[in-house]
């Protein structure tokens, strides 16, 4: 039996992923730019108020854990602008209660690639075009620098972001497995995930602002590696190599765990939807 060379399989998968992402992006934007206007305005309002608060606290002489006002504002801005990458939410869980998960198993591509491509197309591209890019461009007008602390910090941030995305997809699959296990309480899995992310990721409140033992502990957990690590590197954290190594560790540990959990849970998958 003839087998295709690995490179042609990889190219095929890439083409499939790009096509799926393109379809999803067009689907999301097909209703016009107003589709996500309300959500983006609410997001913008949150960003604006957070920046106001941080500025106010800095000027009132609050102890910001060694962070400068400018770094704190940049941290917050980048956290909002890269939210879809720092908080990976693929259709893995939502498709279970919608009943659309079966569609992923009929496509001529691995189900993981389908999830990843859909995530990129449905959420990343529209979010970047309609929120992240305008927010990053407009930020200097409000006294917030969108630039990394240095060129090196920018480069390391990109490496860290890639690792963060890898960990994020692994965590997403683990939560999808939990949702399959919980059956008709799967909505709860997404709620718990949302809470865990808010509590443990450091996306909204930098770990530097928290009490040192709490911040130190949270920084070691996988959620800390997802959001806090890349954001800290962006604003010039001194311990960037350690943060990257920790991210690498979580990526290596979590992906096999996520694969095992998902495969095990797949056997129990029940999805009625509607």
């Amino acid at each position: 039996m003839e087998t295709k060379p690995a490179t042609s399989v990889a190219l095929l998968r890439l083409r499939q992923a790009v096509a799926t992402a393109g379809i999803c992006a067009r689907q999301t934007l097909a209703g016009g730019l107003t589709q996500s206007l309300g959500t983006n305005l609410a997001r913008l309002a949150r960003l604006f108020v957070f920046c106001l608060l941080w500025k106010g606290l800095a000027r009132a002489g609050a102890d910001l854990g060694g962070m400068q006002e400018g770094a704190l504002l940049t941290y917050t801005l980048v956290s909002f602008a890269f939210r879809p990458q720092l908080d990976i939410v693929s259709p893995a869980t939502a498709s279970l209660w919608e009943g659309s998960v079966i569609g992923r198993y009929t496509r001529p591509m691995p189900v993981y690639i389908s999830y990843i491509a859909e995530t990129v197309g449905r959420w990343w591209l529209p979010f970047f075009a309609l929120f992240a890019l305008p927010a990053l461009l407009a930020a200097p007008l409000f006294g917030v620098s969108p630039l990394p602390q240095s060129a090196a910090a920018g480069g390391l941030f990109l490496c860290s972001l890639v690792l963060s995305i890898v960990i994020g997809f692994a965590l997403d699959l683990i939560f999808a497995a939990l949702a399959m296990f919980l059956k008709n309480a799967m909505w709860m899995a997404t709620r718990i995930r949302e809470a865990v992310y808010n509590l443990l990721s450091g996306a909204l409140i930098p770990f530097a602002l928290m009490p040192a033992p709490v911040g130190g502990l949270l920084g070691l957990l996988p959620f800390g590696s997802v959001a806090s690590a890349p954001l800290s590197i962006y604003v010039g954290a001194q311990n960037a190599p350690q943060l990257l190594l920790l991210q690498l560790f979580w990526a290596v540990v979590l992906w096999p765990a996520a694969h095992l959990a998902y495969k095990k849970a797949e056997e129990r998958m029940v999805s009625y939807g509607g």
Partner: protein
Amino acid sequence: MAAKNTLRTWARLMRTYAKMDALYFLRDTRICLLYMFSDSVVSISGVFGMLLLAGRLGQSTGFSQNELYFLAACALLVNGLYDLFFMNNNAGAPSRIIGRGQLDHALIQPVPLPLHFITNGFAPASGCGTLLCGVAFSLWAAARLPGGVWLVAKALPLLVLSVGILFAWVYGVSALAFWAPYAAEEIAPDVTALFSSLAAYPLEVLGRFAQFFLCGLLPVGAMAWLPTSVLLGKAAPGPSIGLLAATAAASGLVAATIFRKGLNHYAKVSCPRYTGFGR
């Protein structure tokens, strides 16, 4: 007489929805308890940041550490009250009802629409998780303040106004789903997230204009900061309560106007949600 009848209908509906919620709780207690737990965790996570920050920020916010705890507890109480009265049947997220074309379900009920909306979300069993956490946390926080636990009782009337403001904003913004059912279907959770994520922060550090903006025009400060400031004697009671009441009244009026316009639009075009992309 009409007011008496309305009140009687309100009480009857609240009793009916309470009974339905209790039946849900008894039918699947395990799942219901799990949901209550997850809802509580989500709400606590919203104010947890403030708890962690309280020790470090302390006096520079104009609030002591214990006062910051009380502020966060009041924010949790507002979320808890909102959940208690509007959790079920998407009453707290009306954009979903409108956007999914389910408003007809409400229109065929033999009660006025506003009465339907303020009653059908009542969840005294499944929706009380956050409120219980809020009550426990606020009692604990208040006990560490000079006013003692009575502060919680004093806070309740003010927090009811805060819930009213949140309700008005959610309904006013959700009315956008009348014109853009697909685009605005999920806008109500965005509004509640906007308010609940910012409710626990002290606005003392901001200038007067920013404080007014965040208590009157985008009233996230009216959720917990303004009531807490009044109770802790950091703001003059008269003007502050006046501002809270005026914001509640104005928000309610604007929301009712937008919602009515949306209903008029709905009467002409209904909800084309399940045609291609809602067009």
